[in-house]
């Protein structure tokens, strides 16, 4: 198990090292891509083998080594934690990363060889960091890989660095997630203060034994959640994700839909045994998740850019997962994470295929592409149905499980919020679908289907988006055996079932959304523009992204710049003043003292002679 997990990590790392130390290989373009794909391919094979091995014998395996000794307190360890949760996540990450890297060969084919090599080097870095994050054995190691993942994301968002928007978006993503990471770092320290250990398994054991100190535990888990808010784009730190769409579309598919943004949810699922002991934090996770889900769904309603629709949708779905984690339904959250990785990755790749063909992100530049791009159309439809949660697509099962768990745990407000969100999700996805593939406008005469290197990877994800629901029982079983298993979760699942009305409700909301989109954008039974105009205050607020960006900008101007002015004044006049004053004194004294040095031999000799006389007097005891 551990050996296989090491191979999973080693694949992308070897590719990264090769591309890093051999610049000619990196600059060669496509061969660099093959090296990177070979690396992640090795990972994928090892991850699948690991999953099969785990299925045959579900045992948690850990490996650790001392990294930094810490006096008598055991020190900081570096290790791998291979349990049901990490095995499943490793397979998902390796699969999506592999698919996306293959797809990129087609999507990025017009890049210069040097840029393409750089692209794949970044991809290998990201894949290594993400897999390392998943397999991390303790909070500190998670933090290290967490930051590496952030670096990979930053580099890939700003991949087209000559575009000012892209570098600005990369900066924004980096700083916003960093803001969350401050919380993460504090959380790691607080948890260490609470339990005296970084290792997840030890923390869980202490929490379940009731020996973890209350305040520090709450602060620690809250800190980790702040980190997860940044990475998983939860309100109010969600502002970076829509802008991150400036990166290449495959990057958006891999990092900003399937894997990295899910890292926050993964972390919360990982520490769910701790979350179970901190109900106050769990309530926040639930509330903020549900609120984020609704808020970003509204923003997706009016977005014109197909990638932004998907980005808001990603934020919304991450809100779903967070809400589930907060409600104690970490199995449902992780199930949704898995299926979301498949169908949202698929949707992004299909959107990339559209953009590749039309050379525009704008939905209103597209239209009537169904005939010209049948495969992309089908894949987009599959992804949209899965995201909307229509039976029997993967999203139906996972979304349903979240709703069911929320209902069972008695979180009525969050439940209804998410049901409404489900309807909106279906509406905006099918709005995008009808606008791009049907519609009145024919904006693209020369659009044609993408090459096989792009459609085959999409096909793989489409199959998983269609049939991903079958993984549900396995995920439930594996998480039940994992280090992060909740004590009562297995029992709850046993007598579960809930009311049969809940799945009906979710599906009804989804179908209503689809119907509305069909009426509005296909049949033209009503004019969506008129509806938007009728509720113009809301539309205007959505256009301004509910003013969250403006609030951040205002805070920046009011506090940060003001603080900067004060600090700048202090530095310029107080600190520099003290230094300048001391310098002036030294200069003045030195100017007087230097006159002692006349340069005449005899003056020096006078000094020697006087010294001699003094010594003689001393010697005579005077």
């Amino acid at each position, binding site marked *: 198990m551990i050996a296989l997990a090491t191979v999973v990590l080693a694949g992308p790392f070897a590719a990264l090292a090769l591309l890093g130390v051999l610049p000619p290989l990196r600059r060669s373009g496509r061969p660099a891509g093959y090296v990177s794909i070979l690396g992640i391919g090795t990972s994928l094979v090892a991850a699948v083998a690991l999953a099969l091995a785990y299925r045959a014998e579900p045992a948690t395996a850990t490996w650790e080594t001392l990294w930094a000794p810490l006096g008598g307190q055991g020190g900081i360890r570096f290790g791998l934690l291979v349990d049901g949760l990490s095995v499943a996540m490793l397979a998902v990450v390796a699969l999506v990363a592999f698919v996306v890297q293959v797809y990129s060969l087609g999507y990025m084919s017009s890049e210069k060889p040097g840029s393409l090599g750089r692209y794949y080097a970044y991809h290998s870095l990201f894949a290594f960091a993400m897999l390392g994050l998943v397999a991390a054995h303790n909070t500190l190691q998670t933090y290290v890989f967490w930051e590496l993942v952030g670096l990979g994301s930053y580099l890939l968002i700003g991949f087209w660095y000559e575009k000012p928007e892209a570098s600005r978006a990369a900066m924004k993503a980096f700083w916003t997630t960093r803001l969350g990471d401050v919380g993460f770092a504090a959380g790691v320290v607080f948890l260490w203060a609470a339990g005296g250990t970084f290792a997840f398994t030890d923390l869980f054991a202490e929490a379940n034994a009731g020996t973890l100190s209350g305040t520090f535990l709450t602060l620690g888990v809250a800190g980790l959640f702040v980190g997860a808010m940044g990475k998983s784009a939860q309100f109010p730190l969600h502002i970076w994700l829509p802008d991150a769409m400036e990166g290449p579309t495959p990057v958006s598919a891999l990092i900003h839909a399937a894997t990295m943004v899910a890292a926050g949810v993964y972390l919360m699922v990982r520490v769910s045994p701790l979350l179970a002991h901190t109900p106050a934090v769990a309530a926040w996770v639930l509330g903020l998740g549900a609120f984020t889900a609704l808020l970003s769904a509204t923003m997706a309603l009016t977005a014109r850019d197909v990638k932004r629709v998907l980005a808001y949708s990603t934020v919304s779905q991450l809100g779903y997962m967070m809400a589930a984690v907060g409600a104690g339904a970490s199995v449902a959250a992780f199930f949704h994470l898995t299926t979301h990785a498949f169908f949202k990755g698929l949707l992004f790749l299909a959107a990339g295929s559209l953009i590749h063909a039309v050379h525009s992100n704008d939905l209103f530049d597209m239209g009537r592409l169904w005939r010209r791009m049948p495969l992309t159309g089908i894949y987009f439809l599959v992804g949209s149905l899965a995201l909307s949660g229509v039976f029997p697509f993967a999203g139906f099962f996972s979304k349903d499980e979240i709703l069911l768990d929320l209902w069972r745990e008695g979180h009525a407000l969050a439940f209804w919020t998410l049901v409404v969100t489900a309807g909106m999700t279906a509406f905006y996805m099918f709005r995008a679908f009808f606008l791009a593939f049907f519609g009145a406008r024919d904006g693209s005469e020369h659009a044609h289907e993408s090459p096989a290197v792009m459609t085959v990877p999409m096909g793989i994800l489409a199959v998983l988006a269609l049939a991903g629901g079958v993984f549900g029982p396995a995920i439930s079983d594996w998480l039940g055996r994992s280090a992060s298993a909740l004590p009562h979760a297995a029992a709850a699942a046993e007598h579960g079932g809930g009311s049969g009305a809940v799945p009906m409700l979710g599906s009804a909301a989804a179908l209503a959304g689809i119907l509305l989109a069909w009426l509005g954008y296909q049949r033209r039974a009503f004019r969506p523009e008129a509806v938007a105009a009728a509720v113009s205050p809301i539309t205007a607020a959505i256009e301004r992204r509910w003013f969250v960006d403006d609030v951040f900008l205002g805070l920046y101007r009011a506090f940060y710049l003001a603080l900067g002015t004060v600090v700048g004044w202090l530095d310029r006049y107080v600190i520099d003043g003290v230094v300048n004053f001391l310098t002036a004194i030294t200069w003045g004294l030195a100017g007087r003292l230097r*006159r*002692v040095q*006349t340069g*005449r*031999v*005899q003056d020096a*000799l006078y000094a020697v*002679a006087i010294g001699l006389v003094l010594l003689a007097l001393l010697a005579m005891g005077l």
Partner: protein
Amino acid sequence: MTLERLLLLSFVVFSIGLYGVLARRHVIALLLSIELMFNAVNLAILSVAWAHGWLTGVILVLFGIAVTVAEVAVGLSLFLLAERVRGTTAADDLSTLEG
């Protein structure tokens, strides 16, 4: 002749040399004064050695005189160089080290 008188002589010669070094301005005079001080020291060593019947002191003084000769040669060549480069042999004018 007692040891005290010899040492007194040595002290007087040394003081004359010291006065010369401090008071004279010409470098040759400086060098001569330094030689005077040096010989006063030699005389002191020799006196003590003579009083105790030590041969070591005599040998030390012989070596000292040999070194002094070399030193005078070096000193004189430096003064010649100073005369050639700076055009002066007055100690007060050689004050490049002034702070």
